């Protein structure tokens, strides 16, 4: 059976053709049957989901339903869910049950969305392959020997395999867009501050942003409409009006200016991926957009800048895991310091510890100016490149990842090789900009992603171009094993 879209489900609910209970039972059944190999879920909450589905059906019967009421989705296990375990992919939080809902969870629940479970992820979102999860690797539904990308790898695999129609994700350096590219689905990371970070377990607070993984750009627009907006609980939440993303999808592309940075087509980009992205740009040009070469001269600094800023912020954020108030605790330490050290040794996995160590080092006495301060200056240069580009173009476009999905285990011994996977996605995080990845081809039977980056708060323009591309092509409908 072909994978449904969220918009189709929404329509079928509105006409009474189906119910939330039927959709939710079907999703739970697919997870039960199809997830043992993928390992895309850490927790499935069937009882809570069915209760929420019945409530959604009653709400619809009472004439109080919106477009999302009754749609079953999954949340990345980084979003706190009251009463439902939230692990962040870590042994440290294996038994953590949040006392409250993240704003993303609360807003979607208020719109009637049903949560069927929590998806697997790289531990504390630190990884690009979903191999650092304490709960095991996630497999790519296109080829079980390959990675689905990360860190939102569970969300991506679950949507690509059609277990759920959509899932939330977070993107600190590409963690929505890269797994979306590697699994052949649509992923959208909004502008920094567009969606509340409240209740989203912190990795690097100046970069973290919540978004969605879906089959289509239209589905993403429908979800973001409910997620975006000011939240007094997040001190960096943007107090800016949320436009109507769904209405904006219909604009035609005549006169849209798309900038293509030459730097994104470097030696590291697989030639066949480059060809698929060029083909996609030609499609957009055929629809009336103009394509112009641009330059982001400092974009080459983004990987080193990110791997200073993100670990520095992570080392600070993760200092809260001391075993005292919540999370794992080493039980029989002789003194307090030993308790901290053993709790953190046993509670964190290898990649998380490497990032904490890197971050601690670059912030330590004598090194701060050379590393962190210099990185914050380089970040300014990268952001300025984008600002300059958006004076002459509406959207920046290029590849999402340098290659299609790589093999599990291929990069685990060399952290720097793994980090280079984020080379095209990190810039948008450093500059705080919205970005998306959409399927634009297959190379050796594996999906390739086209990345779109918009100006700050330009989600509507990103979604519009993505949707128009999906009206003209059907790469987003290609399914694994089909």
């Amino acid at each position, binding site marked *: 059976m072909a994978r449904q879209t969220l918009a189709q489900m929404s329509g079928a609910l509105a006409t009474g053709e189906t119910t939330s209970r039927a959709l939710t039972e079907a999703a739970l059944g697919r997870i039960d049957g199809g997830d043992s190999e993928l390992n895309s879920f850490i927790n499935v909450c069937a009882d809570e989901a069915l209760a929420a589905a019945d409530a959604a059906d009653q709400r619809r019967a009472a004439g109080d339903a919106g477009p999302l009421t009754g749609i079953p989705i999954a949340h990345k296990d980084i979003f706190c869910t009251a009463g439902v375990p939230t692990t962040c992919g870590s042994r440290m939080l294996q038994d*953590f*049950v949040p*006392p409250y809902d993240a704003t993303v969870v609360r807003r979607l629940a208020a719109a009637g969305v049903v949560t069927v479970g929590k998806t697997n992820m790289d531990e504390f979102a630190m990884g690009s392959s979903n191999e650092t999860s304490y709960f095991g690797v996630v497999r790519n539904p296109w080829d079980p020997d390959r990675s689905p990308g990360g860190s939102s790898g569970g969300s991506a695999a679950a949507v690509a395999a059609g277990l759920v129609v959509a899932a939330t994700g977070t993107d600190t350096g590409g963690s929505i867009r890269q797994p979306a590219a590697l699994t052949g689905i649509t992923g959208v990371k909004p502008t920094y*501050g567009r969606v509340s970070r409240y209740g989203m377990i912190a990795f690097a607070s*100046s*970069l973290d942003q919540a978004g969605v993984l879906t089959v289509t750009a239209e589905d993403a627009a429908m979800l973001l409409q409910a997620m975006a907006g000011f939240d*007094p609980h997040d*001190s*960096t939440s*943007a107090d800016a009006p949320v436009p109507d993303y769904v209405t904006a999808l219909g604009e035609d592309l005549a006169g849209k200016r798309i900038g293509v940075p030459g730097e994104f087509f470097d030696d590291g980009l697989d030639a066949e991926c480059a060809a698929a992205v060029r083909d996609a740009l030609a499609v957009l040009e055929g629809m009336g957009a103009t394509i112009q070469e641009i330059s982001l001269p*400092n974009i080459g*600094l983004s*990987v*080193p*800048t990110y*791997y*200073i800023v993100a670990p520095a912020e992570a*080392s600070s954020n993760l*200092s809260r895991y001391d*075993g*005292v*108030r*919540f999370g*794992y*605790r080493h*039980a029989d*330490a002789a*003194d*307090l*310091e*030993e*308790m901290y*050290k053993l709790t*953190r*040794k046993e509670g*964190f996995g290898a990649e998380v*510890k*490497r990032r*904490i*160590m*890197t971050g*601690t*080092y*670059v912030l*330590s006495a004598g090194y701060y100016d050379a*590393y962190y*301060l*210099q*990185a*914050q*200056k*380089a*970040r300014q*240069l990268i*952001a300025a490149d984008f600002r300059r580009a958006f004076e002459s173009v509406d959207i920046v476009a290029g590849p999402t990842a340098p290659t299609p999905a790589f093999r599990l285990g291929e990069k685990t011994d*060399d952290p*720097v090789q793994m*980090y280079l996977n984020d080379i095209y996605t990190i810039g948008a995080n450093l*500059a*705080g900009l919205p970005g998306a990845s959409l399927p634009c081809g297959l190379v050796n039977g594996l999906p390739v992603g086209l990345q779109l980056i918009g100006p700050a708060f330009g989600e509507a323009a990103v979604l519009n171009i993505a949707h128009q591309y999906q009206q003209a092509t059907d790469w987003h409908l290609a399914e694994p094993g089909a």
Partner: protein
Amino acid sequence: MALSRQDVEHIAHLARLEVSEDEIADYVAKLSSILDMVAQLGETDTTGVEPMAHPLDMAQRLRPDDVTESDQREFFQRNSADVAHGLYRVPRVIE
């Protein structure tokens, strides 16, 4: 830049991470290769560049210092490994 094993032990102490003897060589190698990768930033001319404080150049918002939360101590303490009489228990700190 190459880190020494003393560097690794020092950083691990600052980060309150126990590092066992057999992990040190791996940390020395991998952290050194990460620092080599980020070292190229040192060659970038950033004279006169203002370090970025916020990705969108926004100021931090303030709110009135009003009490808005209720006391849910017992509820919140359910996530702790060891509590007694409403307090968090840890190994002895004061002799």
